[in-house]
């Protein structure tokens, strides 16, 4: 029996626009308005909010990427532009998430190269873009300035702001009108606090996407699930400081023992299974965007979401 989805919620999940098309000053082929939910995910009587979006993650330095994905994607991993294009045309992703892993190198300082890579990816795909910037607080200021500037007009989603480290990314959001990811370590109070900090610095609610932090399935995901559920309950009960869409990146799934140590014949299948299952759970907990790294996960998720939405 399907339970009655009427919980007498009073709140609505806020909406965030990602990607700008030409009429809006950008060059994307489409733009998404995520959020807007009025009840728990997949429980709406009328179809109000869209299916969760699937972001395919790529990087600019594959030394910091899963060897399973690297082997599967082949030469693409050395060409973020081509990789992004493939994500759009072949894998069927809704968004591309570019992780600037090159910033993880010791004493990284080539900020200009990040601008060039971002530009190249923007040219190669027409999908709205998520950019995961600096991994090093010391260069945050320059990195986000650069990414923000290069992507001006495109309504990027920039990541990732944390409690002790949000000023640069907030500045980029304000200066160049991008949305940002606000991440807290599986803690609803910290999530709310960060949103308030961002609000105080001037970032408006419709530019914030919450990342509750996603543990891998079997390795702490139940904590993420519970934190997400509570965030969404709060939003629906009218707490505007938590009424933002959520993004989940079950990327830890590819580093767990079961996936890492799977034998060559089955490891792609196992990797996909792990990413897929974690993503489904995240979507059910309320994620508006799920991010995956294995190309084969994308289509499976698409089908699953369509089925959940359609109730078939």
């Amino acid at each position, binding site marked *: 029996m399907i339970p009655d989805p009427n919980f007498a919620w009073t709140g609505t999940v806020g909406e965030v626009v990602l990607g700008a098309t030409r009429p809006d000053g950008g060059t994307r082929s489409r733009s998404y308005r995520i959020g807007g939910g009025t009840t728990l995910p997949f429980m709406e009587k009328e179809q109000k909010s869209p299916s969760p979006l699937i972001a395919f993650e790529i990087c600019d330095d594959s030394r910091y990427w899963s060897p399973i994905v690297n082997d599967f994607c082949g030469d693409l991993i050395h060409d973020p532009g081509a990789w992004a294009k493939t994500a759009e045309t072949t894998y069927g992703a809704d968004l591309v998430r570019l992780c600037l892993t090159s910033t993880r190198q010791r004493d990284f300082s080539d900020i200009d190269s990040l601008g060039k890579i971002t530009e190249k990816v923007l040219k190669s795909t027409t999908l709205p873009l998520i950019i995961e910037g600096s991994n090093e607080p010391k260069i945050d*200021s320059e990195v*986000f*300035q650069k990414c*923000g*500037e290069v992507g001006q007009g495109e309504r990027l989603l920039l990541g990732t702001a944390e409690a002790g480290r949000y*000023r*640069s990314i*907030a*500045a*980029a959001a*304000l*200066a*160049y009108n991008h949305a940002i990811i606000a991440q807290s370590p599986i803690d*609803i*109070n910290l999530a*709310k606090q960060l949103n*308030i900090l961002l*609000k*105080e*610095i*001037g970032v*408006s609610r419709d530019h914030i996407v919450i990342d509750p932090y996603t543990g891998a399935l079997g390795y702490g995901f139940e904590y993420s699930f519970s934190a997400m559920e*509570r*965030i969404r*309950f*709060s939003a629906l*009960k009218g*707490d505007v400081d*938590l009424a933002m869409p959520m993004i989940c990146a079950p990327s830890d799934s590819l580093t767990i023992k079961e996936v890492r140590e799977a034998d060559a014949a089955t490891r792609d299948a196992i990797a996909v299974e792990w990413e897929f299952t974690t993503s489904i759970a995240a979507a059910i907990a309320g994620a508006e965007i799920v991010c995956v790294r294995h190309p084969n996960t994308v289509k499976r998720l698409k089908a699953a979401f369509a089925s959940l939405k359609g109730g078939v």
Partner: protein
Amino acid sequence: MTDVIQATKTGNTQLKNKISQISREFSYDETAYNLPISFALTGVAVHDKNSAADVFAKTGDNPLVASECLLAEATAATGKEPAPFTGFISDTVIRKLGYSLVDGSILGLALIVGTPESAGSAAAICRELQEKYMLTFLAGGVIPILSSAGVKLGLDYRLIPLGSKPIHSVHFVDIVARVAMMFGGVSPGDISRLLTYAAERAKAIVIVFPGLTDEEIALVDGMRVLGFPILTLSGYEGGEWTPATPDTIVRTGMDLKGIRVNVTAIPIPMGCSPAFEGKSIRKEEMQVEFGGGRSPAFELLRMKNPGEIEDGKVTVIGPEIDVMKEGGAYPLGIIIEVTGKSMKKDYEPVLERRIHNFVNYGEGSWHVAQRDLIWVRISKEAFAKGVKIEHLGKLLASKFRMDFPLLLDAVAVTLTTDAEKVLVGKREAESIYAERDARIKGMKDNDVDTYYSCTLCQTFAPNHVCIITPERPALCGAISWLDGKIAFEMSPSGANQPVEKGALLNAQNGEFEGVNKFVKKASHGEIERCSLYSVMEFPMTSCGCFEAIALMLPEVNGIMVVNREYKGMTPSGMTFSTLAGTIGGGAQSPGFAGISKNYILSDRFLQGEGGIERLVWMPSQLIEELKPRLVPLLMAKGHPDLFDKIADETTAATIEDLTDFLTRVGHPALAMKPLM
């Protein structure tokens, strides 16, 4: 000497005349904000005589608007000044500047206008501004003088030459206007938001050198409306301009505008984090110790007037740790001096208590007790890493500034290890403690009209509301009344809101009309009444974070308290965790209340039930923890023997044992008015 008031008057008249003589059309390239000041103030795009006159009239003959229009016309006539002058700065560059301001890599903006008498002092002022992460704009004679003194100018040096004449300082204001529109969400024409933004968010100061004409003085004086302090070294008198000396002008300006150099890392050779707070330093791990009955020691925090102390200054008077014998006990005086615009003398003791936390944050430093009873240790490990007495001072100065950024403008620390000076300082401190005690014996609930709420936990206990009073800290023990007040000052829309207590409804239970009203609203209509001092009737709700639970034991007509750390069974037949599960979640459970440990020591504790005489049982570890403060408190209340009459798990494990114990010792609760 030029009289600022007179000159402003004359200047404004001259500007008005000139506005009426505008003849040509003008506009700026590379901006979406037209003439930004005029556009921000009125929403009108000024480009010719009529629109200029219109905006000028609309803004009440504003000298900023007049100067902006006149400069734009002049620039249109003669073209942009050649490099190094920047003239009007494009939106693209402003975005980057705004970015740096939000990002915190620039702390604020400064304008230097006029012609300094000596290149040396102007260069020194610029250097100080650079060191303090201010972005400085220059207009007029100051530019060639700095250049000739070899000072490098340009964005890379955070010294931007706007133009050769003082009127080019208009661009300073048009930058602020655009930052407000780009970053502050100020819509063109919304004057009140613009002024609020400029006053509160735009961290800008103005330094004026001599040689300004009346019109230019009117322009600069006009910037006061935006809340920029105008500072001057010489050449001007009167008006609202602040006189200063070359050594103090930058600091004075930054203080006036509340621009603070943020402390991010504490420059000491040991870790500093709340994570180390619980770690004690045992005798054999200790390098040296201070106080604890082994040597004289004290701590004192005092408020000073702005400008009296130098922020971040740490002074050590007497021998340093490296000449102290290993394992020895030495005298120590910790004196912290603070200034802050909203700092009050009443906050002194509360801030002073933070010394305890902060010293314990140090990986190799340890602190217990307070005032002239303190006991401080530094570990051998920390000593080996190079930690000195001085570093305790740095830690304290930095932590106070980091944790109270909006309350404190400057913190200076003096650490004395000289035996004689410590004794003198201690006597002085003792007279101050006595004064404080006499004055307010801690802040009392009756001394204030406003309590503070805390709804931080509503994210998981949606209808829970804590009401925090001076005598009843939040049930988690983490937020005192002062913390609530400071939190509200820092974030007016946050989880701590002021609660007007309103009319008194029930003095014994601590029920107030205003509190009830607030609680009803904040609990989304769930809770109608809230007694601050009663466990039995309409007690405060509990979220889940309480340090301890107070609950009635009808069998013995008393109330027991169990703390979170205690894992065993209680005479109620329930463990802490079972009890916590029963009362948490934002429900009101008569007979049960979540409380902080410190509340047990408050005069308000169990007031509704007749006072601390109702307390019959606590776990032994909690009794031990509270003992040093509980014994004198009970003594003062006239119950010197009550302490020994409170049972614990060793004397009374079950309710039957408890009844026997209380009867045997003659506990006063047995004879009190029935609880139910």
